[in-house]
């Protein structure tokens, strides 16, 4: 935990010092291009790698009544028997995190073991992911001129409380609170802490740093976003505008550096659950083993010997021994 926290702080200081010491071009031009390539190629490579793996057994997780006799009601979403159910389950899993909704917490009350429903992980995970999505979409105001219409619409809803100026976007504090919960859960829940590794803490701290610098840049340290847009658009036109770059404050470099690290880290980390969820055999298979035979793709080709082939080989001796044959030998017809 400490190592990953220190690592993220070190990355922040590195970017801040780099921007002071004349490495602006490396931080804001070379690294972002590299990061985008690493992210897109790495993501595609991981997905294709997973798609090449055979699934030996039909292993959907089941959380309800299997399709059975017609008068027993099946759980079509928790125990899908066809691809329609699988689609429904997958869509709800990706959009609503149904499996986290099932999270329970066990405790010993007196001399009894009690299982509680525990919805906080689900709630804060949902807040985090949707805030991240909205923040990501909001950033498209820097990526296109004129600004796409959906950016204005989403900003309107995000800032609908009309608190302060620059207007407070709800997703800013929400994502920081949600991240604080997700970090705190790993620190203060002993069972989760026991199984938490550096690769669990690092992305949380990294994204916290990314969001915190973004919030700082918007509300406190104030970067000239008109210039930022000029620079970002020049990056997208593959003609980096170094004159605009020189006018942008250090906090921008820290924010950008956290983003580049995140993009480059993404394909090699647990964050690949973004693509991996679609390729999970426990989620994307139907529980139809009683209707369809699932053949393990790596089984060797089966060598069959049909009765026809057998009789062709032994027809004459079989006939001579008086055994019944389907087809009599040619000379006896």
């Amino acid at each position: 935990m400490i190592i990953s926290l220190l690592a993220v702080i070190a990355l922040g200081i590195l970017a801040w010092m780099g921007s002071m010491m004349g490495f602006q071009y490396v931080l804001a031009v070379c690294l972002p291009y590299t990061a985008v390539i690493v992210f897109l190629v790495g993501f595609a490579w991981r997905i294709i790698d997973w798609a090449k793996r055979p699934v030996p057994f039909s292993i959907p997780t089941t959380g309800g009544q299997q399709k059975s006799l017609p008068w027993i009601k099946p759980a079509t979403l928790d125990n899908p028997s066809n691809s329609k159910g699988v689609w429904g389950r997958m869509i709800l899993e990706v959009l609503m995190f149904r499996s986290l909704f099932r999270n329970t917490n066990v405790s010993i009350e007196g001399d009894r073991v009690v299982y509680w429903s525990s919805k906080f992980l689900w709630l804060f995970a949902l807040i985090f992911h949707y805030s991240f999505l909205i923040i990501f979409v909001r950033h498209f105001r820097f990526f296109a001129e004129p600004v796409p219409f959906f950016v204005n619409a989403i900003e309107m809803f995000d800032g609908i409380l009309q608190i302060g100026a620059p207007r407070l976007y709800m997703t800013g504090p929400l994502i920081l609170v949600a991240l604080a919960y997700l970090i705190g859960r790993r620190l203060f829940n002993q069972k989760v802490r026991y199984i938490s590794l550096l690769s669990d803490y690092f992305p949380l701290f990294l994204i916290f740093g990314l969001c915190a610098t973004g919030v700082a840049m918007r509300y406190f340290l104030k970067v000239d976003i008109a210039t930022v847009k000029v620079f970002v658009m020049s990056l997208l036109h593959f003609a980096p505008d170094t004159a605009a770059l020189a006018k942008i404050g250090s906090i921008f470099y820290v924010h950008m550096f956290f983003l580049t690290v995140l993009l480059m880290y993404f394909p090699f980390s647990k964050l690949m659950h973004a693509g991996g969820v679609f390729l999970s055999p426990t989620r994307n298979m139907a529980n139809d083993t009683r209707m369809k035979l699932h053949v393990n793709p790596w089984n060797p080709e089966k060598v069959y010997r049909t009765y026809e082939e057998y009789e062709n080989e032994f027809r004459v001796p079989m006939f001579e021994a008086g055994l019944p044959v389907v087809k009599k030998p040619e000379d006896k017809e």
Partner: protein
Amino acid sequence: MYNSKYVISGLVIFLAVFSYPFWGNLASKDYNGPKLSLPADQKQCIEPVEFMRAEHMTLLNQWRDSALRDGKRVYVASNGATWEASLQKTCMSCHTNKAEFCDTCHLENAVEPYCWTCHVPPKGNE
């Protein structure tokens, strides 16, 4: 590869969305930032330009609160000059055109201040 129909189509959608900033801008012209028209007869705003660029929204927010909630309509600038805390009487007396001043930056950066739900936007000399 298994289920390549779904995997490839999903992957293509993912790559298309995430590379949109690049291919979406292939046809667009170079972007040089907003062109705003500054007042011709004034050289200096009420505060230095760097401060105004970064903090004008905070300043206007404070003006609104102090004028409407506390009744204080006098703003003392950092150089000692006093101004009436009023968007229309002070700011808009020099920046006479919302479309040519405010909107140039705000539209290009998708900022939508809610000043104009109460105030009447000045249209300059039209």
